[in-house]
């Protein structure tokens, strides 16, 4: 009688088992958004990541959420994530303090295709600056890349990374646009579209990275490909519900794509038409 193969038991879904990370600092960005700086609480090194990649951060007993890394991809000592209090898990995460532990898995997904030369126009709305911050940090190390940043926020109180914005503005064009100005606001007023002509003035064949709420990308993407950039050079990063981040849970599907493994970065050529379908 043949014996059935009893195989050694590899742990189930190793990639689903998180590591403990310790919060080192909490930086308040806005009333509802913080940037957590975290280091491994086990004896293993910090995972490497590339701009726009995703980590699954969580709290034991509460669950996990996908968040893009917002820190310096060259800093291998810590991870930074910028989190807005929106659902049960992110509300809990924004209430943690130094010394508290979180669960961490990653890095996952396709990063921004960082150019080596030429113009890079970055267009972000709201919290969309978080997954672009690491790209800006990376781009500033590329001497042949000419960066321009358009950052749209609801109001001056909603602007994140204030210190970074000031430092970046000394190096390259930073165009901040707010929808609802305060009495003391002297900058641009409107939506990100208000700064597009200025952002693309004099540029030949730019690369564009865009991140923002779906409605913003759905509205701005067609304007960009109509006048400023070919759709293969317009890149967006998507946010979707994810339970695994490794292509197995099915939650993050966007048309034929699994945002976690086929994205989160897509070219407009791949996904532009999908933004036309409501509730896809």
């Amino acid at each position, binding site marked *: 009688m043949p014996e059935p193969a009893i195989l050694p038991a590899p742990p189930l*879904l190793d990639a689903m088992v998180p590591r403990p990370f310790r919060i080192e600092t909490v930086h308040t960005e806005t009333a509802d958004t913080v940037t957590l700086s975290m280091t491994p609480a086990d004896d293993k090194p910090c995972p490497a990541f590339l701009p726009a990649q995703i980590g699954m951060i969580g709290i034991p007993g509460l669950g996990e959420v996908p968040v893009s890394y917002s820190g310096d991809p060259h800093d291998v000592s810590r991870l930074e994530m910028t989190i807005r209090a929106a659902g049960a898990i992110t509300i809990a995460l924004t209430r943690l303090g130094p010394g508290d532990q979180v669960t961490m898995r990653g890095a996952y997904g396709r990063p921004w295709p960082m150019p080596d030369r030429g113009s890079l126009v970055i267009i972000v709305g709201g919290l969309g600056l978080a997954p672009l911050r690491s790209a800006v940090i990376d781009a500033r190390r590329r001497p042949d890349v000419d960066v321009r940043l358009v950052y749209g926020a609801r109001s001056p109180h909603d602007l994140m990374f204030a210190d970074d914005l000031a430092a970046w503005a000394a190096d390259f064009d930073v165009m901040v646009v707010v929808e609802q100005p305060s009495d003391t606001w002297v900058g641009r007023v409107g939506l990100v579209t208000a700064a597009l002509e200025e952002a693309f003035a004099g540029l030949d064949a730019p690369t564009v990275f865009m991140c923002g709420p779906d409605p913003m990308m759905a509205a701005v993407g067609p304007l960009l490909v109509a006048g400023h950039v070919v759709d293969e050079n317009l890149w967006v990063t998507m946010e979707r519900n994810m339970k695994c981040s490794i292509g197995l849970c099915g939650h993050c599907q966007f048309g034929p794509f699994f945002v976690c493994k086929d994205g989160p970065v897509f070219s407009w050529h791949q996904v532009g038409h999908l933004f036309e379908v409501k509730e*896809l």
Partner: protein
Amino acid sequence: MNRFMIDLDGLDALIRALEQAGFQVVGPVWERGAVRLRPIRSAADLPQGISDEQAPGRYRASAAGDLLFGYAVGPSSLKEALFPPRRTLWEATLSDGGWRFEAVPADQRPLAVIGARPCDVAAVAVQDRVLLDGSYVDPDYARRRDSLFVVAVNCTVPAATCFCASMGTGPDATGGPGRFDLALTELRDGSGHRFIGTVGSDAGADFLENIPTVVAADDDVAAVDHLLEAAGQQARRLDTDGLSGWIVDHPEHPRWDAIAERCLACGNCTAVCPTCFCVSTEPSMSLDGSVASMDRRWDSCYSLDFTFMGGRPVRSSVKSRYRQWLTHKVGTWQEQFGQLGCVGCGRCITWCPAGIDLTAEIAAMRETSDA
């Protein structure tokens, strides 16, 4: 290939031989009004003389006939055995102010299935592409799959909801897309109760050596071929020609709204579908806060939670959720995994409380494809 014949004692001997070799043997059992996949110890556990009647939104299994396999698919598929509905992924303990995470190992016992239907065997091949062939492999599924021993039983009594013939997955497992070790067709007439079989693997051939078999008689082979040909004459069919591209291109077809008026978004179709693989994670914590764990459980794209993001769902309308399920199943699945996600088992039709029939809906949509 020469076909063999075993009798009822031979089938019983096969089940016992598998059990003695260390397999957990599961097979169809009549339980609480339905034929379900459950652990079995002998042929006596099989649903002798049970037949079923299926229609959109309707399933009735009752005593009729004298066959062991005289019914079509019940609500359980091999998915339940290979990809359990709930599974603890990891446990964590808090000590000295820090968390330690440990993966929870899976049940190691190899699995044998008696009476797997050809559509369900085909569904395993579909799940293989999802869970084994991607960038990340589910090792739990991989282990169960590697040790899986399949005794398929061909369908001689398909239900009215079956459309395997049009999907190329049944009613005969032989030559179909799924892998099996042995495939049997049940015969019961004046010459007795017997099973005509084909061998699908070396492991299947090895097990047969210890069981009394004879070469199948020509008349029996002809009778089986006749039965399976008749079983393949199914009124219900799905026209898959160009379907995946067509459905992806029609997200705003008015029929989606009409279906949404009937769909309850209950998720029954995803629970009984042998290929639906979506899962969620469920965290838990001990009352004293010192032991945490994470379960994986089947999920459904019909749930509002499924797409929750930033405090609200991406797919809030029932229309968008039904459209996601069907467009994935027979549309985007093709681009993702190189085949359709539907094997024609008909369970989603039978177990839909509103009796929504994907074959009818797709046919109606494509008749008015100018939308």
